[in-house]
């Protein structure tokens, strides 16, 4: 197996690792690479250090991306873990099927979607990604082993959202969902402030819903933004396939200075008229709005950025308002924050979702106020009975996270059985002491 030594990062580019990387293309090569004792990683779309293993080995799964079987009657798809959700959407939407849950980027791999039990704009209806996984095949010392919720419920649960710690995922059987066409009917509505946003999210009957919040607006305008509601529609793909553009260099810091961000937010909001607007968009433009700009993470400059994503229970919306107010007041936020309603659906011990509201904000890593602000925010989230999203996190501490994930001990017990020697450990797992209370 060919290895290379490289510096690599998560999507936020604020946390870095130096280690050896292999990228097998066949099953025997994968088995060989895994003897080097390292975790499997995907397209590194988690923001912090979930896909990093400093000083050790990691196995990139992106070339293990074959479709193994598809049943056009049931929508059951078996696929290798390195396949991306965007590719699955591209191939199956014309046949009337699509992944039941899609996160905000189509570059996420199936393996990564499972390891982080990701959610989408339909979480309040469809639950999390892992809830649509029928089986997962893990690489073990004695060869591939299929794990199903019926036969191995505990191991299956530990694998969904399990941060790759139960072993490298070779393939998974997914239940796709039908789609009437390749279009999304989108209704955009301007929302004046936070309370109105919560009310609008609660009242929304659309299958897909997401709120874009101006994280710089304060006081009366705190939490203003745009609610985007989507309904799948019949018909072929409108317009030609889009061509991705690249960001060729790291942007200078000025780009995300407070005045520029404020201007951008004002423009973003004014695009949508007072009375709202209706549009029909291709599916991938609705689901993956930023994928058209390859490497958009470089817009945050050399130092990179963090994404703060938290969720609070349904009755804690006022606490979330205070969290947003603290962010707005600090002036560190970047253009867009995302606000969503979520349902109770979750598939694993360490899954992020709970019934309530989630807020996600990007923050450039160079901001000096960030560590103090983050320490305050994570306490506010914990006190509200909420939690931070591990796929995004790069700043939290072990005690806080342990308090946010009540099933952590049950997960640890399963991991101790599945990977007793700690071969799959990542920087995230070490930083947050996830595998041991030490």
């Amino acid at each position, binding site marked *: 197996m060919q290895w290379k030594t490289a510096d690599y990062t998560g999507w936020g580019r604020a946390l870095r690792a130096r280690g050896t990387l292999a*990228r097998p*293309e*066949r*099953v025997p090569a994968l088995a060989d690479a895994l003897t080097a004792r390292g975790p499997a990683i995907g397209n590194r779309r988690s923001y912090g250090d979930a896909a990093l293993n400093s000083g050790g080995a990691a196995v990139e799964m992106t*070339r293990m991306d074959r*479709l*193994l079987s598809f049943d056009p009657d049931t929508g059951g798809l078996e696929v*290798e873990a390195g396949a991306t959700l965007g590719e699955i959407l591209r*191939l199956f939407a014309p046949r009337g099927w699509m992944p039941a849950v899609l996160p905000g980027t189509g570059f996420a791999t199936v393996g990564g979607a499972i390891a982080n039990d990701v959610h989408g704009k339909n979480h309040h209806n469809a639950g999390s990604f892992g809830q649509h996984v029928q089986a997962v095949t893990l690489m073990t010392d004695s060869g591939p082993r299929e794990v199903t919720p019926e036969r191995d419920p505990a191991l299956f649960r530990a694998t969904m959202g399990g941060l790759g710690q139960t072993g490298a995922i070779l393939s998974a059987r997914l239940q796709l969902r039908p789609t009437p066409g390749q279009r999304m009917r989108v209704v955009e509505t301007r929302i004046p402030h936070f309370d109105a946003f919560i009310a609008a999210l609660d009242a929304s009957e659309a299958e897909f819903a997401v709120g874009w919040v101006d994280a710089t607006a304060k006081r009366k305008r705190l939490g203003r933004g745009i609610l985007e509601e989507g309904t799948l529609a019949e018909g072929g793909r409108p317009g030609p396939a889009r061509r991705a553009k690249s960001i060729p260099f790291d942007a200078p810091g000025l780009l995300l200075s407070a005045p520029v961000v404020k201007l951008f937010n004002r423009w973003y909001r004014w695009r949508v008229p007072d009375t709202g607007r209706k549009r029909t968009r291709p599916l991938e433009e609705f689901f993956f709005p930023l994928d058209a700009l390859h490497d958009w993470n470089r817009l945050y400059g050399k130092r990179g950025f963090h994404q703060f994503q938290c969720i609070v229970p349904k009755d804690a919306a006022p606490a979330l308002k205070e969290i947003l107010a603290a962010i707005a007041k600090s002036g560190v936020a970047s253009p867009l924050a995302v606000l969503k309603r979520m349902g109770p659906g979750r598939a694993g011990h360490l899954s992020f979702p709970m019934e309530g509201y989630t807020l996600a904000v990007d923050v450039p890593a160079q901001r000096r106020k960030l560590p103090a602000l983050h320490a305050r925010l994570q306490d506010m989230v914990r006190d509200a009975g909420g939690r931070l999203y591990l796929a995004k996190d790069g700043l939290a501490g072990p005690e806080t996270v342990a308090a946010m994930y009540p099933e952590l001990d049950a997960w640890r017990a399963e991991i101790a059985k599945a990977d007793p020697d700690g071969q799959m450990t990542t920087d995230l797992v070490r930083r947050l002491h996830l595998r041991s209370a030490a």
Partner: protein
Amino acid sequence: MTETWIILGASSSMARAFARKLAERGDGVILAGRDTADLERDAADARVRGAALAETIRFDARDAASFGPIVARMAACEGPVSAAVFVGSMPSQTEIDADPALIDAVVIDNFTGPARLLQMLVPLMEARGGGTVVGVGSVAGDRGRIGNYVYGAAKAGFATYLSGLRNRLTRAGGHVVTVKPGFTDTAMTWGIEGMFLVAPPDKVAADILKAVEKKRNVIYTPIFWLAIMSIIRAIPEPIFKKLSI
């Protein structure tokens, strides 16, 4: 009538990307390589993507006994038959310097192995009135350089063979595309120092399919390699021999 392709060296990432595009167009693909167990997964992938037929067959460039069954299998397919050659190996020049016997293996893998199989297959293609041969060479075949001239020599030999084959197959209504990729992001180049302008295999495969559809003769992919190699070829030998590029 459905076209059926034999893909030699089907495990390579470039071949995989090309076979996927053929499958999505509804062609049949027979995937030939050494690791047939793993190739079954590629065949499954091709079927899910829409291939009219997807099978695997053993092929080892260094084992001529594996050639006959491949020709027989293609003869059993109805309709036009085409072939794409992605076979190759690239030991470092230092390994070859240490063990000159490796030259034989490099020449077999990159040139004589696949050429011999194509030679056996061509009468069938002619009898079926054409088909396409895609031969993947390398920009390294355009000029012998100190860094990898044995690999380059084998690829140059293969390119000359393809040129002659094009001359022959054209008469029967067929076509030959010679592909010269620059650095491509494959398992072969993973971790090798000094790579630049590395293209993803999917981009190379897209260029190849376009060349097949437009009946191009020789393509460089990505296209800027045409400019780079034009310059490298134009350097006079008295100067070139002193360079290390």
